[in-house]
């Protein structure tokens, strides 16, 4: 048996609230499956499990707030796949997910009837339990129509005499990605504002920033992009933002002095290039999910990851892997019309790269004056960790990669 614990979803998280289980005892899970929705004050986060097996018991009910490390559920690991190490998409600092203990001998109980489950407990979905508590419905007396006779939210409503909602509840829909929902409550927006304030105060108090900027001629990049997009199906089309991410990630891989953390008076290079992406939310505020190992992804993969993570951020529900620690951050204000962004570094990182709007500019090259699409890339860097010379080389690398999007 192994234990699934409340993960640390960010360095500043001490507690988490279980909002909703996506699995029931007896369910088979695979590595990477989202099994529980957790509220961290920051965001609602869909937490993945990094071990396959059968869910045995769920120990923390929805609504309960528990410290990081609390056992949330127990799992009977797959016998043939003993305790695999966490994949590299797992939050690095976190004692995440099921700790891989020495595998016990195969349990005598077959899957589906895990040992130790209270026999009297009625099977019900988490939402149904919550609703039942709210409506005063006794679960044990409610007829279940869900899988395995489990009581569903609709069963509870029927029992309570309440009408079922016209639209299925988000929790019970097969594809939560399709649920349109307002991203964040006013309280969450206020909490986010306070957190941004604290982070930015710390940054400007502790980090001696220096700023560099350079203008990049995008003629070739944009020509490549439109040719590329002509041959790609609509769903695989690339945005310039993906190429910009690629350029920053590759520059960070080549020049690690700008990608890492300043901790305890020294620079610690990141293990891998993990790029934080600033995503503005429509209601105000922002989230900065992390793309792990971004330097290993090609433009298409980066674009897909960017689309998915933007969608999750705007819905207000990130994944566990999204909130792992980034080693460098990219902000893109190109859609807002500003030409330059001189950003504030996210501590303990040591650099932030900004991109502004693409504008047509008079451009002289080899003695010839022409009009070119131009973007301003900027670097805010921590002077404790690097000097202007390094920073300038970094920006030059970004420019070079951005201007050669087809190069592997």
């Amino acid at each position, binding site marked *: 048996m192994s234990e699934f614990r409340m993960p640390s979803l960010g360095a500043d998280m001490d507690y988490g609230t279980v909002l909703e289980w996506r699995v029931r005892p007896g369910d088979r899970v695979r590595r990477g499956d989202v099994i529980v929705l957790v509220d961290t004050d920051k965001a609602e986060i869909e937490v993945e499990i990094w071990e396959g097996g059968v869910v045995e018991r769920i120990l923390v009910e929805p609504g309960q707030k528990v410290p990081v490390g609390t056992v949330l559920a127990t799992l009977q690991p797959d016998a043939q796949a003993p305790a695999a190490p966490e994949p590299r998409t797992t939050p690095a600092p976190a004692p995440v997910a099921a700790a891989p203990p020495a595998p016990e001998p195969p349990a005598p109980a077959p899957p589906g009837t895990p040992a130790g489950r209270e026999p009297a407990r009625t099977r019900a979905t988490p939402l149904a339990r919550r609703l039942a508590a709210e409506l005063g419905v006794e679960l044990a007396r409610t007829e279940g129509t869900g899988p395995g006779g489990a009581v569903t939210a609709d069963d509870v409503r029927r029992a309570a005499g309440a009408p079922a909602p016209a639209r299925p509840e988000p929790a019970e829909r097969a594809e939560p990605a*399709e649920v*349109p*929902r*307002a*991203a964040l409550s006013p309280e969450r927006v206020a909490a986010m504002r306070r957190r941004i304030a604290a982070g930015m105060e710390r940054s400007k108090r502790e980090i001696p920033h220096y700023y560099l900027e350079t203008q990049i001629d995008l003629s070739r990049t944009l020509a490549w992009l*439109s040719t590329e*997009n*002509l041959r790609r199906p*609509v*769903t695989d*089309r690339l*945005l*310039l*933002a993906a190429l910009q991410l690629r350029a920053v990630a590759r520059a960070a891989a080549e020049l690690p002095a700008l990608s890492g953390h300043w901790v305890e008076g020294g620079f610690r290079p990141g293990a891998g290039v993990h790029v934080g992406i600033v995503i503005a939310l*429509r*209601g105000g505020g922002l989230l900065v999910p992390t793309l792990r190992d971004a330097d290993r992804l090609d433009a298409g993969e980066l674009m897909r990851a*960017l*689309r998915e993570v*933007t*969608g999750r951020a705007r819905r207000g529900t990130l994944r566990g892997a999204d909130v792992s620690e980034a080693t460098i951050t990219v902000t893109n204000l*190109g*859609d807002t019309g500003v030409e330059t962004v001189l950003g504030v570094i996210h501590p303990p990182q040591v650099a932030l790269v900004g991109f502004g709007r693409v504008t047509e500019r008079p451009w002289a090259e080899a003695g010839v004056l022409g009009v070119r699409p131009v973007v301003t890339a900027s670097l805010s860097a921590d002077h404790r960790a690097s000097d202007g010379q390094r920073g300038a080389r970094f920006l030059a690398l970004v420019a070079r990669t951005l201007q050669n999007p087809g190069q592997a």
Partner: protein
Amino acid sequence: MTDDEIRSLVLEALAAIAPEADLGSLDPREDLREQLEIDSMDLLNLVIRVHERTGAEIPEADYPKLATLDSAVAYLAARLPRRGP
């Protein structure tokens, strides 16, 4: 598809992309990006949704024609097969 069907399809897609927006107060002749704070990622998602519902391939070069609700409906009406006589 009729113009009305196209219009509700576009509105549906916009509602999914910007769920908190008040689409009732949308001015069909004004810029969508400005009214709904739509960025290039949202625009791409709009194009993808329309594609998924209708099969229409909207080339990038035509994105400017999606600037307002009215222009988007007119553009799609010209590209999609008409129903009926």
